[in-house]
Structures are given as structure tokens and as C-alpha cells.
């Protein structure tokens, strides 16, 4: 056991596994703080993952692939926002609909565009970055350096998100809208617009997370490669009490469990038991163990402006 914990591979894998969770979790924070439950992040990640590969292949540039993924992801997010915020349809059902659609649509396109042999093996990948001085530090260097550029982007986004949400005026307004949209409206704030913004941001982050899966970690797309990360991200967000740092911490925990289970291939403690832990912890968090995890008061409740 000790050898496993002291293996830097474990910890860099933790970071790598946490990233596709932390990004949608971060996005979910924006959405839910503005009052919209975005279950569709799973689907957005998947669609983004596919289009990242597609655009990267077509343009020969991984960066353009990332950009393309973001654009498509945000389009889906806006459609979701329209149905959920403007049409006030049930957010959970809509989310599930988008996820099912995404699963089928990406697999369908995969087969029709690339055929049954899968995405081309020469698809460009996003680069890993080796940080000059840090990479030479023993143990820590191996963890902090050499990660995908997305990982570093994520770290920046976490800090930026925290600042944005809790230290800017716009962030204040978004939070107000998710707690008491009526009060926000009387203060002259456009509730609908801000909710669209929250959802769009969740789409943006989920798309980056999806792109990371297909052209950051690997360079291919396979059906259903998001494997429920969008849902787990929601759990991480709840566990992290709807804050950027909390979500990241929770994502690390989940990532750690996954990484650990990969190392424990043939040991006494079944990896599957380890894998269960994050989910059990989330249920405990929801039930109030360790302090009540309170969601934004108006989360998931559609709002119709007065007149």
C-alpha cells in the first residue's frame, strides 16, 4: 500500500482523472448558482469530445479542435437554456433528453463520418506542458509538470471562477438570481439573461472537459467516452458546496479514487470498493453529514418575470 501511495504516478493520474470532473463541476457551479440544474453537462461533454476530434482532424490543429468543441458545446447549452429558462420545461428531463441524444448522435456521426474503424490515429492532440524549473523537483515535479495544457488551464479557471463568482459584481448578481430571482428582479436585474449566462458558462466548461477527454488525454473518440463524468461532476459540485474550490477538491477526491483503483489491479482491497466510496460520500453529504449542503435557494425552479 505504501508503495502505491508513494508512487508519483498515482498522484499525477489523480490530477488527470480529476480534470474531466472538475471542469464540468465548475461549469455546473455557474449554472446552479444562477438557478438552473444542468444535468445535460454529460451530453455536452460527449458532443464536445466528438467535435474536438472532428475539427482537429479537419483543420490539422488541436487548438482549432478545442475551439470547435467549445462552439458546439455552447450551442447545445444555449438550446438547453432556451428550453429550460424561457420555455420553463422540466430541467431534469430536458437534461436527460440531451444526454441520450448526445450519446446517439455522437456515435452515429462517428460511424457515418469515420466509419467503423474509429477516429483517425493521426488526430492532433493538445500538448502537454513541461514547466522548466519545477519538473526537476523530485516527486512533486513529476506530478506538477508534464500535464496536459488543459490541466493548467483548469487551475487558472478555478481561481478565475472563484474570483468571478465571489468578488465581482456580475458574480454577485448571478448568485442573487439563483437565491431569490424575485428580489433580483426588483433590483432591476435581468434574471433570464443571467440564467442564460450561467448555463452558457456550464456549457463552455463542460466542452473544455469533453475536449480534454478526446484530444487532451488521448487523441480519439469512442462511443460514450464521457462515461457518466457529467453526472459525477454534479455530485462533486454538491459535495463541494457549489463553490469552485470545493468542486475542485471533490473532483480530486473522485479522481483519486479512480486513480487508486487503477493501481490496485490485483490487490486484496478490491478496486471496486474504492470506486464506490466517492458516491457513498456524496449521498452522505447530501443527507447533511458534515454540515448541511445547501443549494442555491431557487435552484431548479423556473422563473417567469412579472408584468
Amino acid at each position, binding site marked *: 500500500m505504501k508503495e502505491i501511495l508513494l508512487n508519483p504516478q498515482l498522484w499525477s493520474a489523480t490530477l488527470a482523472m480529476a480534470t474531466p470532473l472538475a471542469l464540468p463541476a465548475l461549469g455546473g457551479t455557474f449554472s446552479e448558482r444562477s438557478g438552473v440544474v444542468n*444535468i445535460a453537462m454529460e451530453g455536452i461533454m460527449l458532443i464536445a469530445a466528438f467535435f474536438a476530434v472532428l475539427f482537429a482532424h479537419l483543420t490539422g490543429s488541436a487548438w482549432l479542435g478545442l475551439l470547435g468543441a467549445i462552439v458546439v458545446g455552447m450551442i447545445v447549452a444555449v438550446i438547453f437554456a432556451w*428550453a429550460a429558462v424561457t*420555455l*420553463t*420545461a*422540466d430541467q*431534469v*428531463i*430536458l437534461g*436527460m*433528453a*440531451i*444526454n*441520450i*441524444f*448526445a*450519446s*446517439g*448522435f*455522437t*456515435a*452515429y*456521426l*462517428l*460511424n*457515418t*463520418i469515420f466509419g467503423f474503424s474509429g477516429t483517425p490515429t493521426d488526430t492532433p492532440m493538445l500538448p502537454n506542458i513541461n514547466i522548466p524549473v519545477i519538473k526537476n523537483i523530485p516527486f512533486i515535479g513529476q506530478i506538477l509538470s508534464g500535464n496536459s495544457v488543459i490541466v493548467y488551464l483548469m487551475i487558472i479557471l478555478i481561481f478565475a471562477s472563484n474570483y468571478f463568482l465571489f468578488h465581482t459584481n456580475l458574480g454577485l448578481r448571478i448568485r442573487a438570481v439563483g437565491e431569490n430571482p424575485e428580489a433580483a428582479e426588483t433590483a432591476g436585474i435581468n434574471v433570464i439573461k443571467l440564467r442564460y449566462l450561467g448555463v452558457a458558462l456550464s456549457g463552455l466548461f463542460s466542452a473544455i472537459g469533453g475536449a480534454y477527454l478526446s484530444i487532451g488525454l488521448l487523441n480519439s473518440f469512442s*462511443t460514450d467516452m464521457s*462515461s*457518466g463524468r457529467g*453526472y*459525477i461532476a*454534479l*455530485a462533486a459540485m*454538491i459535495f463541494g458546496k457549489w463553490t469552485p474550490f470545493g468542486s475542485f477538491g471533490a473532483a480530486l477526491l473522485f479522481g483519486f479514487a479512480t486513480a487508486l483503483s487503477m493501481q490496485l489491479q490485483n490487490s486484496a482491497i*478490491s478496486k*471496486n*470498493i474504492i*470506486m*464506490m466510496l466517492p*458516491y*457513498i460520500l*456524496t*449521498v452522505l453529504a*447530501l*443527507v*447533511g453529514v458534515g454540515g448541511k449542503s445547501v443549494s442555491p435557494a431557487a435552484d431548479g425552479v423556473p422563473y417567469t418575470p412579472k408584468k
Partner: protein
Amino acid sequence: MKKLLKSIYMPILAVIIAIIIGSIIMLVTGFNPLSAYASLFIGAFGTLPNIANTLANAVPLIITGLGVAIAFDAGLFNIGAEGQYWIGAIVATWIGYSFKGLPWYIHIPFALIAAMIAGGLWGGIVPGFAKAYTGAHEVITTMMMSYVAIYFSHYLLEFGPMMEKGSVPQSPLIKDSAVIPTILRNTQLSYGIFIAIAAALFVYWLMYKTVWGYEMRAVGFNQRASKYAGMNVPLNIVLSLSLSGIFAGLAGAVQILGVQHRLYDSFTSGYGYTAIVVALLAKNNPIGVVFSALLFAALGTGSQYMQLNAQVPGQLADVITGLIIFFVAADKIIEVLKSMFKKQKKEELAS
């Protein structure tokens, strides 16, 4: 009759719109929608074995769908039907291979009932109580329990207590006395179909003719008025989620005893989430669930055939499914479109 037509017109419209959009997608990607849909239909209903397999596919969807519908009727989202299905499957498998010398009329009911209880507990204890007494949202709790169930099954099968001797992560075969026999040879259709239909009739009776169904629906429609009428709201919440889990567990058991005959190590049965879609389209009506399940089962078997014969990727079925649900959920779109039409007409008349 009129009432029936009125209530199914929206779902049917959603299906039609989804099919149309599916056609557009096919056209854009170079396929002929007509031949695609034709082979889809043949794959589902074209030959007797196909029909049998479609029906077989419908069995778990009907039963799990019923479970999800019960929860929806009570105003609750049981997204974790998948996990409850697994628990039912695990229990049924274990009972299936662990007991020898039992006659089938004891062995099968034993396995089924145990699976139902297990599923019911999985849905009712944690998510049910959590929701009833702490307000924890059942979407997340049931989903989390799903993952726990799946990993639990992996633990059991991958060099765990339920693994068959050898190197393949699967359980031992269940005993012959636990097998639900096949109706048509070389198909997957077992007598489980009758269990499914019986379940649908039972749920219909339960929800619409008994005191418990009355209370669950009342609580699902209006918690406040139910409280004012003297009903115990938290109890009904726990009951609904438990009942929902019972049926999901039954579905898993029937699938094991009737089709698979052992537990395989896999990530998803594919039925848990589709069941949600089945229930939504059927608007939670138990009889509607049967037809809705048939539709999605047909999409499933048909799409495999379609893939082989028309070269259209089978995942088109998921695309259509997603679209159907999107339009069922956003049914206000229809109203918006209607009012846009009316407005246009008014302007035309005015000018």
C-alpha cells in the same frame, strides 16, 4: 375515448417530430431515410423471430418503466432505476445458482421476490428516507446508489464471491429450476413477457384502484392539499421510491432468469435510463408504459437490423429517443408554435 386521444396526441406528435428530424439528419449524412426506417421496421416486426426479440426486449423496459412511472406519479425522479435493476439481478442470480433441489415453482418465485425486496430497499431506504426527511434530491441520491450497485456487482464478479471458477468475470449459471423458459426457440422471448404484462396490470390496479395508489398520486400532484387532507406525506415518499425500486429489481431478476441465466460483468444494462424515457413518453400511465416500451424495444431491435442491412448506424435510435423526450419535455414548444401561428394569422387578417 376523446380524453384518451387528447392525452396521447402530444406524445405522438413528439415521436413524429423526432422521426422527421432523424430523417433530416440521415439525409444530411447521405442516407435514405425511407429505406432506413423501412429496415428499422422490418428489424423490429418483420419476421416472427424479430417480433419475439422485440417483445423480449420490451420485457425489462416495461417492468423498469413501471417502476419509474410509479415514482414520477408521486412527483419523484427515480433516475437510479438502473442500480435497483442491478441489485435485483445480483440477488436473483445468487439465489439462482446457490440453491439446488428446489422445484421451479418455489425457486423462481423465491428469486423474484427476493430481488424485488432488494430493489425496493435500494430505492426506498437511502434515497427514500433521505428525501422524505432531509429533502435530499432523489435525482442525485438514486444516481449515486446506481453507481454503488454497479461497482458492487463488479466487485462480486471480478475475482469476488460471486465469480465462477475460471478467469471470466461472470457468475455461475443459474440452476435449471430457476430458469424462466423461452417461448419461442432461438429467440430471447421468455415467459417473462407474461410477468411484464401482469406487472402492468397490477400497477394499474394499484395506482388507480387502491388506497395506496390514491395517496401516492395525491402526494405527487399536490403535497399541500394532501397534508391538509390528513395524509402522511413523508411516508408516501418513502413508499413510492421503495415501490419504484421493487419493480426495477424485478426487471433485473426477470432478465437474469429468463434471458441471461447468469450475471455478466458490464457497465450498463441499457435499460435503466431507457426506462425513464419509456415512462415519460407514456405519461406514467401503466398501460401506456407497455406501448411505450414496445416502441423503444422496437427501436432497439430494429436499429440493430438497420445497421446490418441499411448500413445506418444503430445509434440513430438513441438520437430519435433523445429528440422524442426533448419534445415531450418541452411540449410548450408546441404551444409557442401554435401561438406564433395564431399571431401571424391575426396580422394577416388585420392587414
